[in-house]
């Protein structure tokens, strides 16, 4: 494997709920190579989502290191972390999380508003992203005018539009019917295989995980079989 894009060393995450400490991750070490499609699997409470959140820079480790593209995300301030996410991470949520008052085009354009791109450049990027996910003909539709599968594909386009280093997906098929789930997984697979995107996906569904090139199992905050 080339220099890993994600290097995790002795990573722990402990949540404090009053007097009670909940260990979500316990001394995890893991490498993810550039261009990999990794599925993080495990039962509920295994720590897979926590691990994904730390990799994506929306949560911080209690101990250990999480280095993505040479940057230890635990060392960044909130503002630096936001800028880092904008550049390096594309996020796909289980519940799509599109802005209901914006069209598909505008939802995809949202991350680009923070960049210095001109309106024409933004439009080109958005159209390319929507074309890639097969929704070029649904650009002017509001989320409520789209099916669940289409909404998730818009969310994937939004995650892709800034050309991030990592595409992270948290249960991306959890709210979809089998047909739409298959479409979304196929799309993620295509993005990984044909566009070379590194994808890290959390799922508890073995069928979904089967689309990944590698599966990493977690249980009680630890990797099974060393990942």
């Amino acid at each position, binding site marked *: 494997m080339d220099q890993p894009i994600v290097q995790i060393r002795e990573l722990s995450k402990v949540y404090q709920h009053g007097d009670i400490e909940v260990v979500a991750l316990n001394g995890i070490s893991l490498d993810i190579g550039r261009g990999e499609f990794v599925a993080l699997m495990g039962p509920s409470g295994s720590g897979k989502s926590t691990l994904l959140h730390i990799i994506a820079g*929306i949560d911080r480790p209690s101990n250990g290191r999480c280095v993505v593209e040479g940057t230890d995300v635990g060392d960044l301030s909130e503002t630096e972390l936001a800028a880092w996410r904008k550049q390096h991470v594309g996020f796909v949520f289980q519940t799509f999380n599109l802005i209901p*008052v914006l069209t598909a085009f505008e939802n995809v354009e949202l991350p680009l508003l923070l960049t210095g791109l001109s309106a024409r450049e933004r439009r080109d990027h958005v159209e390319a992203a929507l074309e890639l996910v097969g929704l070029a003909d649904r650009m002017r539709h509001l989320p409520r005018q789209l099916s669940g599968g289409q909404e998730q594909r818009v969310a994937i386009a939004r995650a892709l539009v800034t050309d991030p280093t990592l595409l992270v997906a948290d249960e991306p098929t959890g709210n979809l019917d089998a047909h739409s789930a298959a479409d979304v997984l196929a799309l993620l697979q295509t993005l990984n295989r044909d566009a070379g995107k590194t994808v890290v996906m959390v799922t508890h569904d073995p069928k979904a995980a089967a689309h990944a090139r590698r599966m990493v199992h977690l249980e009680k905050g630890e990797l099974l079989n060393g990942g």
Partner: protein
Amino acid sequence: MTIPGFILRNALRNKRRLTLTVLSVALSLFLFTVLQTALRELSQPQLTEQSALRLIVRHKVSLANVLPSKYQSRIARVPGVKRVSRLTWFGGIYIDESNFFAQFGCDANALFDILTEVTTDPEQVAVFKREKTACMVGIKTMNRFGWKVGQKVTLRGTIYPATLELTIRGVYHGGIDETNLFFHHEYLDEATGWHVVGCYWIQAANADAVADVIQKVDAMFSSSAAETKTETERAFQLTFLSWFGNVKFLIGSICSVIVFTMMLVTASTMSMAIRERTREIAVLKALGYNGGQIFGLILAESFGLALVGGLIGCVGTWFLAQNVDMYVLSHGFFVKFEVTPHIVSAGLLIATAMGVVSCVAPAVASVRASVLDGLRELD
């Protein structure tokens, strides 16, 4: 789409709430600017070059106390006094008490030489001077009652035991007050037999003489039974305000309540709007929007909402002042009702400041909330 476009979409997502909030702010600003305009009209009578030369001599104790008529000739001899006229508030009732307007007994020969800002027909003034029961009336009062020149007007005295049968011989226009009725003081003297004067109206020879005249007139009567208080016309007008109690405090209090209510309404709206969007704000953060950018989006929305409400309120007040005769509407209480740029600016400044202040707490809370907490809120 642009950032302002995104803010606008967010603001418009709940149109009913937006409309009600904007109307609340607009109504508050309308009341605020109306009250401020009213306060200005009551407390800041306009000062003209001519009015700066005019002085009022009244009883030192109060306006309710009268002065002897023999003071007039002594005042006229004071150096720096160009003209002097008696000026007595009659306080009569025309038909019934709701038809309030000011009526003054005066020296007909001196009146329009002292009250130089007004425009009159010289022929009408000449007739007014000749005829003891004649009166001159301001155009607003003429219009208010639909009076015509030549018409007879009966005023039933409330302070003085007399009923005056007056004939309108002329109309005056302009000046700071187009509502007064002026009649011959001699007619009042004959009707009552009292020969007393409410106050004296002095025209000083020039601006330099004003201070000297004030000092000399008051000194002249300092040991008499009816001591005087001489003051500029403007200072005299301001004393009227004190008749209504501490109006400034009262209006100030009402304005404070209005501003506070406006802040609560806006804060409530923004809190609800932000709470509804907890997950969306978390998503924006996950997409790379930082705390300052999120704060800016919320602030701009609140600011814009308050500004639009404020503009509507101010335009409403301006429309009222332009299209409604406040003299008639207020039954003669407000002679003018001028919404100044200063009042509009103050109103808009307060509206926008309230828009900013009211969103700070919810905006800070949403900036501080972690992305995960925001996402979990609805997942």
